[in-house]
């Protein structure tokens, strides 16, 4: 059974989260991963590629954690989970559909939505499985990607 305090967040969409995809942020992200592909930091190399400029690695939209302070969507649900005693939260997985490359200088608008919350019996008792769906648009209003993430509270 999913407690009502959690259930009320299903279907809620956080306010759109707008970010400029900065060169420095892309470089730091690639560096933290240990990814030395020049497409992510070498302007000269990237300018001769099919993209014409530096791009962000798939999965990086300027900022990967799209947590917007909001009582409605993701943060609200996470707070409700902790209050309901499901304070041990683990990331379950991530999937994407990519439609367009993300270039340095693009504006990305993310809209994260609480898609579903389900109770599941696990080894250590009942778990709350939370599914999120985030849509990413660029400055032209074109669909860049969709991301699906699962967080598990125990």
């Amino acid at each position, binding site marked *: 059974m999913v407690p009502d305090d959690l259930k009320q967040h299903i279907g809620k969409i956080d306010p759109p989260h707008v970010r400029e995809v900065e060169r420095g942020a892309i470089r730091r992200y690639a560096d933290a991963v240990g*990814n030395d*592909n020049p497409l992510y930091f070498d302007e000269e190399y990237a300018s001769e590629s099919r*993209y014409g400029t530096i791009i962000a690695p798939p999965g990086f939209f300027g900022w*990967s*954690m799209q947590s917007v302070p909001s009582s409605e969507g993701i943060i609200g649900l996470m707070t409700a989970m902790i209050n309901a005693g499901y304070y041990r939260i*683990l990331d379950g*997985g991530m*999937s994407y559909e*990519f439609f367009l490359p993300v270039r340095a200088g693009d504006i990305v608008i993310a809209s994260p939505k609480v898609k579903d919350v389900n109770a599941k019996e696990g080894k250590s008792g009942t778990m709350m499985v939370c599914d999120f769906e985030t849509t990413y648009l660029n400055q032209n209003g074109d669909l860049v990607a969709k991301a699906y993430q699962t967080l598990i509270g125990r």
Partner: protein
Amino acid sequence: MVKEQICWEDVEVGYELPTLEKIAHSLMLVKWAGASGDFNPHHYEEAFGQSQGTGGTIVHGLLKHAWLIQLVTNWMGDEGFMKKFSCQYRGIDYPRKMKTMNEPQDGDTWQCKGKITNKYVDGDDHCVDLEIGVVNGKGEVTTPGSATVILPSGEWQLDN
């Protein structure tokens, strides 16, 4: 500059991607926290990790996801396009602690692996499906996943 580019015709089902090796350590996790914006203390504070039931600090799922994306995108080359990606965090990975300011202690090395499971044409797109995963030091796949990539077909070489 002549760049090496893999083409759809170059690969078959069963083809294995070059393995990408990674070492997760505390310093890398802190850098990742800063770069990704995930400041959950579960990844840098030992006592908090214990309170979360994992026995200590653990490697970010999203860092492992970024490793797998690196595995695929650096293999597919600049002309490839990643269409779909998915991974599940099934097993917990523990980072190496630091020995010096920038050197980790001895310990596990992780291997990111990939294999082509399907090859097909979808409209104008020459696609391959991949089975991918992060393998820990014990040989267990802690982070299995899949990806679909569009590769340039042979005509790309003639046109360029």
